[in-house]
């Protein structure tokens, strides 16, 4: 039986950022660099964690290895999101947004975000 996008939620922080970085085709290290950049340095991913996550996501058909325009001397694999992957990412984004949205009023009531941390 094929899995629906909702079956993969919630995503781990690492997975969420990997999928976000695959808005463009990238190889492993480029994903690590992009994740660090888009998370403003909050998330630095180790190669062990990334390699394991990519293998899992590929097996789940959330990402796929691109076959086009590959230099034969390049040992890297290039990844992109599948249709399923795009759905998973969008659905997770909506889930997280609604978590924030639903809490907003109460958090403001508690004295706002400025007292956080």
């Amino acid at each position, binding site marked *: 039986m094929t899995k629906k996008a909702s079956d993969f939620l919630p995503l*781990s*922080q*690492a997975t969420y950022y990997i999928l976000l970085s695959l808005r463009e085709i990238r*190889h*492993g*290290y480029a994903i*690590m660099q992009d994740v660090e950049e888009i998370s403003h340095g909050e*998330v*630095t*991913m*180790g*190669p*062990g*964690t*990334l*390699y*394991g*996550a990519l*293998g899992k996501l590929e097996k789940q058909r959330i990402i796929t290895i691109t076959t086009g325009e590959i230099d034969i001397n390049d*040992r*890297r*694999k290039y990844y992109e999101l599948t249709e399923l992957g795009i759905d998973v990412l969008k659905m997770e984004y909506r889930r997280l947004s609604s978590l924030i949205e639903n809490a907003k009023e109460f958090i403001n009531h508690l004295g706002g975000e400025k007292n956080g941390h």
Partner: protein
Amino acid sequence: MAIKKFRFFLASNIEKEEAWLTEMSQNGYHFTKYKYGFYYFEQDAAVSYVYQTDFRQDTDEVYFQLYKDAGWQHMMSYLESFHYFRTEADKSGFKKIYSDPESVAESLQRMMNMYVAIFLSLIAIQSGLFLMWDNSGLVSIISSTIVFSVILLYVFLLFSIKRKINYYRKQI
């Protein structure tokens, strides 16, 4: 100058081994290879490395390329499963190859699976031999003691790995 040191670490103490290699490197001795219980080091006072070991059996060139790109130098692989990497210590502080508890737990689970498989085949082989033995005499006592010790060691190892997996899973 190269030196060698004898040490024994259980696979479940992979972090202790990493810490030891990193500490040796801070003192100017940099691990290069492991063979038959001996760790070989090259001396160089000018550098210092952080050592990390990954356990993985399904590696390919993409795997090693990723580590290389990320600034980790592959030193050696043991049993084609334990991969020793290092990176320069002053490169943006303290780096780890696993950045979340989930992936550490998965790595330990892979290790656990391998040792369970080895353990079970060991038991299977030994019970076969045991049935054929003439269970008397000194040789038999000595070999039974060795086999029993090895089995105990494996049981201890498996429990240690399992305890670590649970520890990391709790942090997810």
